[in-house]
């Protein structure tokens, strides 16, 4: 009966997995594309460029993603002018709200991560580049960004996994993602172990694939920078 319940729920899990993957990819793509320029702005010494980025990442990183999701999903509908606007069919879809919340979140974290890596670069590298007479743009493109992105790899791996796990919140706003499938199965058959462990196993597999990919990337791009550190033991 237990196995039968899971077999019956298999299509549910399959479509849930597909939903989860689409949410993840869309959020990461949008978030990552926005984060790169924002990180550079965040590190410029010009206060009026830096401040808005700082405020944005501050507010987003300071509030739970569930709150942001609920503000978009339930909160927007409180205002009549939003409901009457031409954009409402888009704004009101659960897909839009979920992807927007996840992408904004990912963008804020990635921005801070990159900015942190940029600031933490050894001063010698930057001083050397400056001594070579590189412009600020050249310095960013040739020295700072490639090095910062390498140093970000382990942290960005964490971030991608965090967003994958964050997509489980989509089940709270009616989207049938992987977690939604598990909750539906638990509610239908009252089998908490089977339902959630099945979902956990699939998430585990997804995470394992992501982590392996990032480990390979670290070996490829980061290991040369850490030759000293690896031997500490």
């Amino acid at each position, binding site marked *: 009966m237990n196995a039968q319940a899971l077999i019956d729920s298999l299509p549910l899990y399959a479509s849930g997995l597909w939903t989860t993957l689409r949410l993840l990819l869309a959020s990461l793509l949008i978030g990552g594309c926005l984060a790169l320029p924002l990180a550079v702005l965040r590190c410029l010494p010009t206060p009026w460029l830096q401040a808005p980025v700082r405020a944005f990442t501050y507010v987003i990183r300071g509030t739970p993603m*569930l709150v942001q999701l609920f503000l978009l999903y339930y909160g927007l509908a409180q205002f009549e002018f939003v409901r009457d606007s031409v954009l409402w069919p888009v704004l009101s879809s659960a897909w839009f709200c979920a992807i927007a919340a996840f992408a904004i979140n990912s963008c804020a974290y990635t921005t801070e991560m990159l900015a942190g890596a940029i600031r933490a670069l050894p001063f010698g590298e930057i001083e050397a580049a400056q001594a070579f007479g590189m412009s600020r743009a050249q310095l960013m493109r040739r020295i700072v960004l490639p090095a910062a992105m390498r140093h970000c790899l382990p942290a960005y791996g964490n971030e991608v996994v965090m967003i994958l796990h964050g997509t489980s919140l989509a*089940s709270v706003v009616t989207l049938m993602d992987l977690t939604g499938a598990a909750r539906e199965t638990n509610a239908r058959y009252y089998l*908490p172990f089977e339902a959630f462990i099945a979902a956990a196993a699939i998430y585990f597999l997804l995470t394992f694939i992501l982590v392996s990919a990032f480990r390979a990337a670290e070996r490829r791009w980061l290991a040369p920078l850490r030759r000293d550190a690896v031997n500490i033991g």
Partner: protein
Amino acid sequence: MIIRGSRLVGWRRLLPCLLACLSGTAMPVLARAALPDPVRIGVEGAYPPFSEVGPDGELKGFDIDIARALCAQMRVRCVLVQQNFDGMIPALNANKIDAVIASLSITEERRKSVDFTDKYYKTPGRLVARRDAALRPTPDGLAGRRIGVQRASTYDRYATDTFARSEIVRYAKLDDVFLDLAAGRIDAAFADSVASYVGFLRQPGGDAYAFVGPDFIEPRYFGNGAGIAVRKGDTALRDALNAAIAAIRANGTYAAIQSRYVDFDLYVDASPAAAASAGPLHGYARSLLQGAWVTLSLALLSLLLALVLALLGASAKLSRSAWLRAIAQAYTTAVRSVPDLVLMLLVFFGGQALVNALALRLGYARGPDIDPFVAGVLTIGFIYGAYLTETFRGAFLSVPAGQREAALAFGMSPWLSFRRIVGPQMLRHALPPLLNNWLVLLKSTAIVSVIGLTDLMQRAGLAAGATHQPFLFYAAVGGLYLGFTACSEAAFGWLSRRLDVGTRRAVYR
């Protein structure tokens, strides 16, 4: 689940017989003796007018009044346990509650998992839609339309089977169905007629909507009214509740509650004006602050657990023993691979079944209860222990190897070299990611509301449902979390300035 489903039930059936053999006392006394003390009753709190949470945080409504009247009639102590509707039967079978008084319709499907008392009320289900929507309330007329229902309710089941060509959208709470109907995300709501009438149609803005179509009463789906669910085989409690229902119907208590419910109905109309005068948060400020305190203590206790686990994990990962490294690796890999929400649902529902099975093996009737707070601390601490392990490992690796080698060469023990040389330098590197980890941990506490903890998030949700102002309350929650963040950052900033003393940084020109 086989263990939970049959063995536990077997034991529960056995218990009265066993007691009878041992004591030889009369059956009525036995029935009383077999009742739990206190009786834990699952109620919902988001299904007005049957159950809802007022500005003062008090549960009220028809279900709540009935529950209290039945407890008084049975002369037992009761505690009301608030729970999301779709978690109600799982919680009952996981032994977190003993009975469910939550307008649960008596159906054959549910009878497979729980036992029901006689009905305590019965009302038809109806469709609600915009007056100008011109919906034909037939399966053909509703084809392609979006119909909102409460997940796992009888309305969900009926709509799924009957309106097969419509898109059924499922929500955890009925309040959310109506919020989305008002937002235009769904074309119709399908729910209990009284709940729709009082909870939506009579609310501000509800006059643009109306009932469409007939009363839906098919007993195959809607059963024979709402009953009280108890665990399968818990005949003692079921019989006591049945007797109490009959008694309050006979002695006029039920009629009194019913009339109070009509009064309450009128009170709902008067409340928006009264609520508007109660400050910017409609009188819910106190409730939110209480929730904030729960959230904060949850976060701090989880952090403590996570730090301990992380130090153990990081030293295991960097140790020479392959076994320790493997265990730490398994821990960080497994835990970081599953979403917080899934782990939490697993610990809360599955963990209880496990604890009960274990207790049974040790000879107890049932295990200690896992409450949402404990489940939250354990789950979050366990998860973030794994993330912090990676943080600490990375920080340790960023301290130049020469530092430790020099310390060892000076004759320091490994522990002393860690405490004096590596540790303080490592902390400087660990601080920025540590702040990130802490902020993520803090914010992940919001999802504990999903398993029924009355934290900040849950209280905001209840307030949003009651006042129909979700933006206001979720923004307030965001503001409170932002306040926590600001305090954390100030503390970390001060620490990092102290630890950065003497570090040279490049100046960008």
